[in-house]
């Protein structure tokens, strides 16, 4: 984790020096000490670590970021947008407000990479700024890379975890949707969403529960409904990787241990969508 954090931190510190801290004359004119200050801190907060890089420089120039975004066609001129949202353009690939390319920055490569790196570690990044006072960039990183927020569900007798980040909404499968008419589609407020019965995919034994639940999950651009017997609730899951001997198993990305000590598998939503498409392509053998 530390190694992966090094490059983003170096980048943030460079940004503070080059974009944040003003030259001596400007600093003295705005009643600051002539020496700029950059503070780096790491704080423990719940299941997260907050790493902050704070400078007492000029702060973000929201107007200039906005002008640049409009110039690059990212934002319609005159569109209403909060300062917070305008600052998000800093994470856009190729975005730079520095007028000239210096030894340290201005190439427009960086913040998007920083953001990608942090998100790859399942963290997030925030910027807060006060014009003329300085900028604080906060990286929120999960304390262990192995904890995810999950939705605990039951399919047949098995309990499974769906990563909460992939869940869009949960609903009850209505009687009209329940009727199998040879098409596994669902009308979600006008959108056609294909669905997969996890019971079929997992070959679960026993009778399905009377009121089947549907979880709309997304992976990238694709949305899919996953039909389950029961939604048990949210579950903070410590990810255990699956054994090498199970490397041929694609539907699950890992496992976790539940409160009662038993193991539950974590669904790999992207793979499930692919598997569901494979299942849909096969002729309906059991439905007839």
């Amino acid at each position, binding site marked *: 984790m530390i190694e992966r954090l090094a490059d983003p931190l170096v980048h943030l510190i460079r940004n503070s020096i080059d974009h944040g801290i003003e030259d001596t004359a400007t600093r003295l004119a705005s009643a600051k000490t002539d020496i700029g200050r950059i503070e780096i801190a790491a704080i423990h907060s719940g299941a997260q670590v907050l790493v902050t890089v704070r400078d007492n420089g000029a702060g973000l120039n929201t107007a200039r970021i906005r002008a640049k975004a409009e110039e690059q066609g990212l934002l319609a001129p005159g569109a209403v947008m909060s300062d917070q949202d305008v600052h998000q353009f800093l994470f856009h690939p190729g975005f730079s407000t520095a007028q000239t390319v210096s030894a340290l920055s201005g190439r427009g490569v960086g913040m998007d990479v920083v953001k990608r790196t942090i998100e790859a570690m399942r963290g997030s990044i925030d910027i807060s700024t006060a014009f003329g006072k300085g900028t604080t960039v906060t990286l929120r990183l999960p304390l262990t890379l192995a904890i995810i927020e999950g939705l605990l569900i039951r399919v047949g007798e098995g309990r499974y975890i769906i990563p909460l980040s992939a869940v869009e909404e949960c609903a009850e499968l209505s009687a009209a949707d329940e009727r199998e008419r040879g098409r596994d589609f669902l009308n979600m407020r006008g959108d056609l969403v294909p669905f997969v019965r996890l019971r079929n995919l997992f070959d679960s034994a026993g009778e399905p529960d009377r009121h089947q639940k549907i979880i709309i999950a997304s992976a990238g651009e694709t949305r899919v409904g996953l039909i389950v017997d029961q939604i048990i609730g949210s579950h903070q899951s410590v990810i255990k990787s699956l054994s090498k001997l199970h490397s041929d198993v694609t539907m699950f990305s890992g496992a976790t241990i539940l409160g009662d000590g*038993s193991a539950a598998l974590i669904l790999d939503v992207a793979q499930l969508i692919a598997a569901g498409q494979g299942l849909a392509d096969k002729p309906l053998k059991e439905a007839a």
Partner: protein
Amino acid sequence: MDQNVIERGPETPEVAAPMQVVMLGIGDEVFALDSELVREIIDPVPATRVAGARPFLPSVVNVRGNVIPLADLRVRFGMPKAEGTADTRIVVLEIAIDGDPVLVGVVADKVYEVTEISPADVQPTPRVGMHWNPEFIRFITKWREEFVIVPNMERILS
């Protein structure tokens, strides 16, 4: 080490020193497992079925916070399925798969004892009269006047 035994051919097993083994029963066979492989022997714990896994690795279990696969060697050996009994145990092994240590649980119908087998008792694997895949067998030895199989767990599980 195990690989070398196979490469030299199953007829010339080489056990230089007495070997410590764990004797366990699966179906009506008795196996002598090299005790070097055995991490622990535990009572059965609830297993979680893994959909889409190979039939002889049908589930995972939690062993001291590790989620490890549970192997059903009855399936692998073509034996009939059986319910667990009071004697059923999970033998946790550490085997090498592609050079990496991998933990795996094996369901044993009974664990008899930890004992030593002497090089003198080692028998060549007969080429005929076996319904076993010879790849699965390191060699055959004697225990309580019975012939028992020393299995090649790496081959069986991979």
